[in-house]
C-alpha cells in the first residue's frame, strides 16, 4: 500500500522523479543498510567541479547511470587510503556483474603534491576503472566542505602528512547520496550494502 501511495504522490507532482520510477527506481527516503550509514536525507556532493587526469571537468552529473563511490585521500597516505581503495576493488569484484556500475572516485586532498598523471596511475593500480580527481587548493577545500570531510596538514619533520575523514560516500545512479561506508568495514560488508543501493536505483 505504501508503495502505491508513494507512486501516486510522486506522479501527481514531480515529472522528473516519475521518470525515475519508470526506469524502475524506488524513491524511498530511507534505506536500511546492514553495515553502512544511511545518508539518504543528506544533500552533499551536488556542486563539486574538479578535473580528471586528462584535465576534463568532472562533476557528479558526469557519472549519471553509474553508482559513484567517492573517497578522499592522498597518495602519500600509507594506511587507510590504499586499504580503502583495495577494499573497493575487492567489493567491486564481489558484486559480480553489478560491480560494473560501481564507479570509484578518489579525490586528492593533497593537490600540491599529487600530480594528475601520478594520481591516475595510483588509482588504476587498484582497478583500471577507478578515477582520480583533483582541483586547486580552493576547489579541494570547497569540495571537502560540501561533503563534510575534515582534513588538516600535520607537520612531520621537514614535511607533512594529512589527517582526514575516511568515509566512502555512495550515490545511486540518479545522483542522490545514499550510503556512507566507514573505513572499518570489510569488502564483503561494503559489497552487501552497495547491492542494497543498486536495488533502489
Amino acid at each position, binding site marked *: 500500500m505504501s508503495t502505491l501511495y508513494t507512486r501516486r504522490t510522486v506522479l501527481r507532482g514531480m515529472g522528473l522523479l516519475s521518470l525515475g520510477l519508470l526506469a524502475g527506481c524506488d524513491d524511498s527516503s530511507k534505506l536500511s543498510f546492514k553495515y553502512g550509514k544511511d545518508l539518504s536525507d543528506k544533500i552533499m556532493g551536488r556542486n563539486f567541479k574538479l578535473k580528471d587526469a586528462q584535465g576534463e571537468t568532472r562533476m557528479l552529473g558526469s557519472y549519471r547511470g553509474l553508482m559513484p563511490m567517492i573517497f578522499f585521500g592522498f597518495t602519500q597516505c600509507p594506511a587507510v587510503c590504499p586499504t580503502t581503495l583495495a577494499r573497493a576493488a575487492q567489493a567491486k569484484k564481489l558484486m559480480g556483474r553489478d560491480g560494473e556500475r560501481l564507479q570509484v572516485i578518489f579525490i586528492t586532498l593533497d593537490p600540491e603534491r599529487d600530480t594528475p598523471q601520478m594520481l591516475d596511475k595510483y588509482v588504476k*593500480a587498484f582497478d583500471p576503472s577507478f578515477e582520480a580527481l583533483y582541483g586547486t587548493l580552493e576547489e579541494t577545500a570547497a569540495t571537502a566542505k560540501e561533503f563534510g570531510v575534515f582534513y588538516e596538514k600535520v607537520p612531520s619533520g621537514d614535511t607533512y602528512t594529512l589527517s582526514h575523514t575516511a568515509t566512502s560516500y555512495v550515490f545511486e545512479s540518479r545522483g542522490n547520496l545514499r550510503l556512507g561506508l566507514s573505513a572499518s568495514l570489510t569488502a564483503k560488508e561494503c559489497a552487501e550494502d552497495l547491492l542494497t543501493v543498486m536495488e533502489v536505483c
Partner: protein
Amino acid sequence: MTSFCVPRIKQLGLKQLALGLSLIGMAWQVSAQTQVSDAWVRATVAGQLSTGAFMTLQADTDSQLLSVQSPVAKIVQIHQMSMQDDVMNMGQVESVPLPAGKPVSLDPNGYHVMLMDLTAQVQEGSKVPLTLVVENAKGEKETINIEAQAKALGTMDHSKMH
C-alpha cells in the same frame, strides 16, 4: 641447523648463497634481542613520493624502536595512525614501545614506518633494505638490518580481513 648448512654452502654459487641468506632474512630475522618478521613495503607507482613499511617486532626484554633508515628514502619516520569517528589521524612518534616477549605489529592500522621522499619507485617484488635501531631498558642499542619484500600497492591488510 647452521653446522648442517655449512658444508653445502661450498657447493652453491654466490648467487644462491645470497638468495638463501636474503630468504632467511625475510622470513625471520633473529638477533640477540629483537626479532623482526613479516616485513613488507607497499609498492609505489612512478612519481609517488612516499610509502609505508610494515612488520612484526618482538623484543626479549622491554625495549623501544627508536628509528629506521633505508637507502630508498631520504626521510624515514615512525608514524601512528588512529581512527576516531571515521577520521584518520596521522602523526609522527618518537619511538614504539616493545614490551618484553610481546609481538608488536607495525601495520596499516596503527604504528608504521613512513618512507618519505623516495629516491626511486618501489617496484613490486623488489627487496627494500631497512635498518632498525632498538634500545633496551638499560640503554643498550641494537642495530638490525632486514630486507622487506615490496608487495603490490593494492595489498589488503590481512589483520582487517575478519
